[in-house]
């Protein structure tokens, strides 16, 4: 297969409307296996809408998403606009185990290999001591790590993360980025990561998707930093800030 042609998912002219107003319109991009894409854009620019549309959580008003031949395993970390119910009696390991259900056939059972996997990801994210705690009683950053673990536990082929580092402390944040880079490098995991941490994401992601209701830029970081159009669009300072050229 020609690696130029190989795509894991392709957005073709994707538009989404809420009521009358268009949140995103006419976005066309092709994502290749192994891509590590930072998705950036101002508040309300449609980043969350774009990934939700890809996941089938909001209906498209136009266009389509085309996935690669075989069904792909997806890990998803939603943006924390709706929260975990603090009254729900779910322990940390139970919540992480939900991430493993996607690969299973009926009847979906958690076996001992799964349990080892849960322990593994929990200790990668530094929450192994919280395993039996009720998720509702954790601190904000601890909860965020549980949800990260849930998204990563089944070794997905695409990981879609909506502002994953919010609420994480700097130490954990660095660990987390390292983990992602390792997954990306070692297992060719495709990563889509929405972030406002534009000054930092360039150190990790290798591609750059800038959305502002429509597609503004999609390409590698080097391309972005070299693009005159982008210099025009953002002004020289922002590009400088993102590209860390100083």
């Amino acid at each position: 297969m020609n690696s130029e042609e190989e795509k894991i998912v392709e957005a073709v002219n994707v538009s989404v409307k809420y009521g009358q107003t268009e949140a995103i319109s006419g976005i066309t991009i092709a994502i290749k296996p192994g891509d590590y894409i930072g998705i950036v854009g101002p508040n309300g620019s449609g980043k969350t809408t774009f990934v939700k549309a890809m996941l089938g959580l909001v209906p498209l008003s136009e266009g389509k998403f085309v996935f690669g031949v075989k069904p792909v395993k997806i890990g998803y970390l939603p943006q924390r606009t709706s929260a975990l119910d603090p009254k729900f009696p779910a322990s940390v390991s139970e919540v992480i185990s939900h991430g493993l259900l996607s690969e299973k056939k009926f009847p979906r059972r958690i076996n001992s290999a799964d349990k080892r996997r849960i322990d593994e990801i929990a200790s990668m994210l530094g929450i192994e001591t919280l395993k039996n705690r009720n998720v509702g009683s954790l601190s904000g950053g601890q909860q965020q790590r549980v949800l990260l673990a849930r998204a990563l536990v089944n070794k997905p082929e695409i990981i879609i993360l909506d502002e994953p580092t919010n609420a994480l402390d700097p130490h954990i944040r660095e660990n987390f980025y390292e983990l992602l880079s390792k997954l990306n490098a070692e297992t060719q995991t495709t990563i889509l990561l929405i972030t406002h941490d534009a000054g930092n994401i360039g150190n990790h992601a290798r591609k750059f998707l800038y959305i502002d209701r429509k597609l503004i830029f999609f390409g590698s970081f080097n391309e972005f930093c070299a693009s005159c159009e982008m210099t025009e669009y953002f002004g020289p300072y922002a590009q400088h800030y993102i590209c860390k050229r100083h």
Partner: protein
Amino acid sequence: MHQMISELVEALQYTFIQRALIAGCLIAVCCSFLGVFLVLRKLSMIGDGLSHAAFATVAFALLLNQSPLLVSIPLLMLASVAIYALNKKANLYGDAAIGMIAGTGIALGVLLASISGGFNVDLFSYLFGSILAVGKEELYAAMFLCAAVISVVALFYNELFSISYDEEFAEVNGIEVKRVNVLLMFTTSITIALGIRLVGTMLISSLIIFPAVTALQISSSFKKALILSASVAVFSVISGIFAAYLLDFPAGATIVLMNALLFIISFIIRRIKS
């Protein structure tokens, strides 16, 4: 003390007490398992709500001259799916959706009762069962129901749990959210329809809510909550029936009050712990 025991031994010799104990425990297990899911999804009042809806279905059955139970079960399954659909499509809270179906059910029942002129029976009498009047076939029905509910919960445990906790994530994760939800609603409506006939609305509704909230007071994991809920339910039925016999109280009401007592105990335990 000695006399109490001999009274209880006497009680156990009655077929109606034996049946009440067995059927009561079976129904209690069904309700308490489903209850945990229902309470967490803000569908606590579904027992009450569907019993109101059953009012209309019984009126409808009498109008068609059909067996009320046979007509009610499919209609209640429909009603429970309607609650689910309102919850999703109209973006309503579960309890509001239940209230709407309940209100519409009662109103339709009253309307049918008024305009039909064809029947002169009290519609409520078809709804109310008594745990002390469980027949042989009803006992078999309870066994069958219990087996069905336990299988559903056991086979779909992880799906049900995942969907109850975070429906959006479950959806992305490839779980058949709609199908599992409909399965839960169907199981619930059959349990309620049969349960109302067997042990009455009051007891069904209470057995859905009380054991679950009691378990939620002191459970940090979901599995513990399920197990605790079932234990509380079974204990309340057994101790309630015996207490009712000793004190000459109505059995259903005693079981409900026993449940209330167990809740208070678990509430105190939680308070002491923290």
